[in-house]
């Protein structure tokens, strides 16, 4: 027998602040800490030019290798000390944070666009297109991406464009797999069939019927991949293959600063801590979002 359709109770759409408050309420202590750290890092990155007391690249040979405030030989105004060229570690960390987050954000977005498009294509077109795309996915999974990144940067040079491209190529296959899987699942659903019966073309179906239904797994994957991309960018910069000096990124500050570790460990500590905070906060948030999405899936 069939049941009569029950009209959905009409709930008022929650306003954005109210939804944010709800989210905040549902977080535990560590998740709240991660949210606050994340917001603080983004604010620091955006307002770096206003907050930083010095030009990140201005050198001062008479104040080289000064320790942070509170230590012997510290120089007034240099909160976290100076590096081997007398540049302010605090200002460089802020600008490094800014660049690292910017590169990672662009890279993750590019990966989402590449992987999302290919996944959508594979899921809708099927057949040989799908087989080719999935073969590319398998190849990408089979090779450790750090090696590919190392190789591409050595060959194409370390310009910002190449770095964003390399970061975008890291992890696109995850989006492609997720989107393809979701699309294949959704394509069998009655509402897609109804849309097709009503005369909707593949583009309209993709745009209005598929995309809204795969946003939440994509958001989760974006967050999870962001921390991997921050790690990859930092690792490449650390090895000397990322953005070239004198421009500061967190990874390159650690990479260059390690030569001065015995006498000036503060050069390394500040950027290393920032990398840790980013990856920690992003991973906690990603896991939290994933659990939330899972609960909704189970409740369905």
């Amino acid at each position, binding site marked *: 027998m069939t049941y009569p359709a029950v009209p959905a109770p009409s709930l008022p759409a929650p306003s954005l602040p109210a939804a944010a408050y709800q989210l905040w309420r549902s977080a535990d202590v560590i998740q709240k800490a991660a949210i606050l750290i994340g917001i603080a890092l983004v604010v620091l990155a955006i307002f770096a030019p206003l907050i930083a007391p010095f030009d990140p690249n201005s050198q001062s040979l008479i104040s080289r290798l000064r320790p942070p405030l509170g230590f012997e030989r510290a120089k007034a105004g240099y909160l976290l000390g100076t590096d081997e060229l007398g540049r302010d570690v605090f200002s460089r960390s802020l600008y490094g944070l800014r660049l690292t987050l910017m590169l990672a954000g662009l890279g993750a977005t590019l990966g989402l666009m590449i992987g999302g498009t290919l996944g959508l294509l594979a899921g809708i077109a099927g057949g040989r297109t799908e087989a080719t795309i999935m073969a590319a996915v398998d190849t990408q999974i089979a090779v450790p991406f750090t090696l590919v990144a190392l190789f591409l940067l050595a060959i194409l040079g370390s310009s910002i464009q190449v770095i964003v491209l390399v970061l975008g190529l890291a992890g696109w296959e995850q989006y492609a797999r997720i989107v393809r899987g979701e699309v294949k699942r959704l394509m069998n659903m009655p509402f897609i069939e109804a849309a097709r019966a009503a005369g909707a073309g593949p583009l309209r179906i993709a745009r209005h019927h598929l995309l809204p239904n795969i946003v939440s797994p994509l958001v989760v994957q974006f967050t999870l991949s962001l921390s991997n991309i921050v790690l990859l960018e930092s690792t490449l910069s650390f*090895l000397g293959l990322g953005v070239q000096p004198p421009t500061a990124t967190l990874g390159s500050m650690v990479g260059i600063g390690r030569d001065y570790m015995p006498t000036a460990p503060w050069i390394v500590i500040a950027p290393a801590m920032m990398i840790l905070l980013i990856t920690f906060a992003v991973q906690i948030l990603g896991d939290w979002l994933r659990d939330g999405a899972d609960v909704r899936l189970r409740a369905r």
Partner: protein
Amino acid sequence: MLSYALRTLTRMALTFFAIVTIVFFATRLSGDAIDYVVGEGITSEDRALLIEYYDLDKPLFSQYLAFLHAFTDGQFGLSFIERRPVSEIVVERLWPSAQLLLPAMALTLLVSIPLGIAAAIWRKSWVGSAVMAVAFLGYAVPNFVLAIVMMLVFSYWLNWLPVVGNGTALHFIMPTVAMAGVLIAALTRFTRNAMLDVLGQDFMRTARAKGLPEARVIVKHGLRNAGITILSVIGLQVAGLAAAGSVVIESIFAWPGIGDLLVSSALRRDYPVLQFGVLTVALAVIVINAAVDLAYAWADPRLRHTVKA
């Protein structure tokens, strides 16, 4: 089983072929690699001679065929910088890498499997939460930060361990731990999840109902079944993480392995070495993946019948 093995091997060969092709054409994207090597102040005749010497004047496609041909006779070319066969340079780096990877893998298995099982059994008590919190933290710490912090504390402040090199047994401690760190974090999480899946199964209840002691139920019935999943994760994820880890850790600790070689040849733009090195590591990872895949199918007959190529 035989047809499954053939499919796996074919896929492995195709993947490797795709990588060879991509690597070759990517290398040639950058124009005349020779300019990076010889620098300024070389006469144009000498430059032309060098280009001819490295076969860079041939058409792209015939260079590609020559490159493929190298797989039949082992002539992969000469290093731009060291002027000796790249195969020789890469091969002598393999053993030091293995010397670092094998202890790191052993440490990973010894630590993460018991921890993962413990976290699954006592998932609702503080034991489970503590293990997962540490695993989580370990996954968020980049391996180069871990390595740097260890160097700072144990070499510079406490003076207990040597900073770089691979001379004595003491030299092995920090690189092994730094390499194993992220692997332990990853594998502990996978082990816990795999065990959790198994713990809820009917055969576990049956085993307990038979009156078997709990330890035997966990190990013989639980771990045996979870082990199949764990094995596949080791092949897929851990092999990749280990390859990436080698690059970073070897370069930090000046460990004369293949990871250090890849970074230094990337920085010096020694393309022949970089190219052959990347292919060697890629081949190693692909072979490990395929081997694990086959072991997986052999251990779990359901797989080879249900999974289509």
